């Protein structure tokens, strides 16, 4: 027999005889489910394919800097195994200090990629580890779209809102920027874990079920293993709990959900060696602990109120509250004074006090991703969503529910944090999609009802149908423009691998600059295996991964004074720099030079940061020495003599004085600074030029051993 619920066309195929018995049209609910599944499948495919621009244009290669360390770690994990990875001490980075990788890394990303690799190999699908790493972020972006569908559905109790949210987050540029194919970084899986945790939290608050709360704790554990941004979750959820308490929405469900999440989640978080006891000690986790205590107090007080009368309770409550607050303040003060509770670390303190990094920690201030956000970054990364976000907030405020309050809090805090740091636009993108989808879904609901009209009844107001049609059409046009914008932004702005540069020539053909990989492979094939390479910290991960040589400083930037030493070496003249290089056993020096090609992110443009960071530990290095008397940073003949004789200048411009770069200009014309360089004819006393790449982008020098005596 046929299962009549299973659907018409399958049965038609199976048994022609029963054709007459089958209803020709599927029932409405089944149609809806089919439509929803179809839409979600399309969204899944789109989210994956829109991130493949750079794979198609160039090749399947890891981008940027940080992903190279993650790639090297994943290779180590896959080759050496789980326990060797957790206990890995990397002596090839931060020479001579080394780095305890096992304890200073968030391992979630490497484990996820290794798991995908091992599962695929188990089924004899022999993927290369590089391809797994490159395509992991788009795969997880598709999963994020599906989880956002569920999250938006929970928050707004409407399926349509979920679908719109999933469609928006599949292509929103704010999320794409950190999850293109090749961008093998923590954020690629962290956003998936974030939305999953939030979805399970909202579900557990709404149902009060221990099952969902435990799942939420497990999702939180995955998030802690994936990204340092888990601090956001462990502060947002307590804020939500407090907000619910303040608005009189306490319920047993909330109690069950939060207590389970806090206890299980904290214990699980402490399993990650990088977090360890910070989960109960550091100031960033104190709000969660405080809320846990507050919730117990609240429940206890309510229980007492039920058992004694109201008057007696009032007196008791006043005394108890005063004592409790005094005790809590005392505990906090003691904890802070003895140093048991460590204060907020610099990176997170910058979010609360944005001026902190500029004054105290130049390394944090120098990273361009950590700058505050401008209006154009907001509009570029969110487009239509900036208009729909406040409307979505309005709809949430109009009908407050437990889940709505969570969406509101998430929206407000992420807007503020995205305003403080450009990189955190990533955290704003999902909630802006969810809130905008609420606005879109509400509007479409109202106006489609106008358009369809009530069956048989008269119109509520004249031209109702036309108004509905115009509104729906207008909204559709806006959404189509959103898609155009997102695709353009993905294609032009966020799909560059940055390890390979491309430029359009006047005749339209593409010129590829593959200098970085050329130089790293030269290092790999032409230097001793234990050679040590000194370069600025930006390139450390790439040198470790591709050239497989020991580096002095890399992107982890955990030791400020070591970086300052390297900065001092680059900023001093050749004699002083040679002293430092001999102390550090440096064999090769690598610099990036863009003067021949016009590549603007080269070491001369970064030089002032080297001076600032070097000067933060050595007061002899003054930033003003490197400027002209009028305060300008110039490399031509009017530049300061200290600048024109420092190691970085000499290494970048060695032999450049004899090169003609542009028609009509003299020799040694720097195409980035747009001047002719000042110090043209000089020789290097302590270094020999080993290799300069095809377009002079990367220059490698060998440090000469000291002269023999006599």
């Amino acid at each position, binding site marked *: 027999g046929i299962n009549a619920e299973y659907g018409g066309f399958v049965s038609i195929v199976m048994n022609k005889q029963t054709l007459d018995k089958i209803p020709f049209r599927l029932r409405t609910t089944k149609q809806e489910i089919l439509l929803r599944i179809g839409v979600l499948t399309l969204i899944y495919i789109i989210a994956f394919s829109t991130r493949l621009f750079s794979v198609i244009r160039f090749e399947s290669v890891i981008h940027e800097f940080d992903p190279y360390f993650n790639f090297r770690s994943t290779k180590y994990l896959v080759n050496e195994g789980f326990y060797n990875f957790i206990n890995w001490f990397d002596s090839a980075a931060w020479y001579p200090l080394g780095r305890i990788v096992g304890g200073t890394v968030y391992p979630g990303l490497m484990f996820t990629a290794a798991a995908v690799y091992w599962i695929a190999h188990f089924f004899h699908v022999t993927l290369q580890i590089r391809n797994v790493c490159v395509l992991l972020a788009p795969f997880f972006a598709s999963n994020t779209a599906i989880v956002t569908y569920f999250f938006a559905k929970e928050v707004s109790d409407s399926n349509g809102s979920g679908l719109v949210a999933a469609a928006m987050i599949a292509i929103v540029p704010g999320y794409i920027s950190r999850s293109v194919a090749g961008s093998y970084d923590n954020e690629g899986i962290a956003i998936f874990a974030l939305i999953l945790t939030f979805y399970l939290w909202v579900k557990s608050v709404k149902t009060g079920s221990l099952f969902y709360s435990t799942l939420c704790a497990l999702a939180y554990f995955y998030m802690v293993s994936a990204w340092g941004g888990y601090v956001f979750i462990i502060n947002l959820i307590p804020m939500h709990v407090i907000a619910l308490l*303040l608005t009189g929405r306490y319920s047993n469900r909330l109690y069950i959900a939060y207590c389970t999440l806090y206890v299980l989640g904290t214990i699980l978080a402490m399993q990650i060696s990088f977090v360890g006891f910070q989960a109960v000690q550091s100031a960033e986790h104190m709000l969660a602990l405080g809320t846990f205590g507050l919730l117990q107090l609240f429940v206890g007080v309510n229980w007492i109120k039920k058992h004694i009368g109201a008057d007696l309770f009032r007196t008791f409550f*006043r005394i108890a509250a005063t004592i409790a607050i005094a005790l809590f303040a005392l505990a906090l003060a003691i904890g802070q004074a003895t140093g048991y509770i460590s204060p907020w670390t610099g990176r997170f303190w910058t979010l609360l006090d*944005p*001026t902190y990094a*500029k004054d105290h920690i130049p390394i944090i201030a120098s990273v*361009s991703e950590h*700058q*505050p*956000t*401008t*209006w*154009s*970054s*907001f*509009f*570029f990364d969110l487009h*239509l969503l*900036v*208009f*729909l*976000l*406040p*409307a979505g*907030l*309005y*709809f949430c*405020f*109009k009908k*407050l529910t437990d889940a709505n309050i969570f969406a*509101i809090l998430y929206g*407000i805090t992420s*807007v*503020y944090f*995205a*305003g*403080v740091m*450009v990189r955190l636009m990533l955290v704003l993108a999902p909630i802006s999609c969810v809130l905008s989808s609420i*606005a879109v879904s*509400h*509007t479409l609901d*109202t*106006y489609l009802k*106008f358009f369809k009209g009530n069956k048989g009844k008269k119109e509520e*107001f*004249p031209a109702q149908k036309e*108004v509905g049609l115009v*509104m729906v059409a*207008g909204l559709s046009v*806006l959404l189509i423009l959103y898609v*155009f*914008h997102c695709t*353009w932004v993905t*294609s*032009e702005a966020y799909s560059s691998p940055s390890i390979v540069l491309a430029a359009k020539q006047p005749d339209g053909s593409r010129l590829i600059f593959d200098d970085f990989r050329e130089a790293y492979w030269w290092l790999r094939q032409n230097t001793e295996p234990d050679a040590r390479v000194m370069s600025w910290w930006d390139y450390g991960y790439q040198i470790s991964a591709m050239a497989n040589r020991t580096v002095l400083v890399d992107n982890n930037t955990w030791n400020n004074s070591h970086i300052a030493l390297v900065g001092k070496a680059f900023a001093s003249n050749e004699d002083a720099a040679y002293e430092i290089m001999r102390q550090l056993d440096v064999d090769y020096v690598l610099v990036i030079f863009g003067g021949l090609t016009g590549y603007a992110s080269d070491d001369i443009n970064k030089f002032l940061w080297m001076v600032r960071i070097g000067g933060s530990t050595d007061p002899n290095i003054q930033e003003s020495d490197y400027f002209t008397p009028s305060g300008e940073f110039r490399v031509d003949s009017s530049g300061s003599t200290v600048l024109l004789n420092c190691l970085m200048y000499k290494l970048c411009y060695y032999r450049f004085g004899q090169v003609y770069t542009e028609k009509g200009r003299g020799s040694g014309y720097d195409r980035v600074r747009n001047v002719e360089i000042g110090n043209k004819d000089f020789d290097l006393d302590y270094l020999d030029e080993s290799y300069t790449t095809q377009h002079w982008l990367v220059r490698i020098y060998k440090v000469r051993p000291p002269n023999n005596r006599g």
Partner: protein
Amino acid sequence: MESILQLFEVPFHFLRVPIVRLKTPTFPSFSPMLVFCFVFLTYFLVLSGIIYDVIIEPPSIGSSRDEATGSVKPIVFMKYRLNGQFIIEGLSAGMLFSIGGLGVIILHRSSQKLQSEKVRYLLILAGVLCVMVSYNLCILFLRNKIPGYQKSF
């Protein structure tokens, strides 16, 4: 036990307790819409890039010298850079975002029950105008700032 209680009574034999009407401070309750107005205001400020303005301290408006006459011309948009802005440019963009959001809210209000039909059509017109004008102006701003926007495909 009795003697301890009597000890507590001693100060009040010569001190007179003043009559003080004190109320324990209660947490003021706000209506949701009031909170929403406050949230909307902070949204406007943050999206104008006010934190960027406070940290980086850009000029409120750029200036360039006119070659021929030597007079100083104001430049509103910091060109070629997405991560830089002038203060007035940021505030006007933030205003546009807020007006766009208000437009969507107005459109929702126009679909609810209202006193008269005239008000309904006025609200619809106002909402459509807000959304269309703010969206198109934002695109114009962006095109002005990044000349290559949506040109090279």
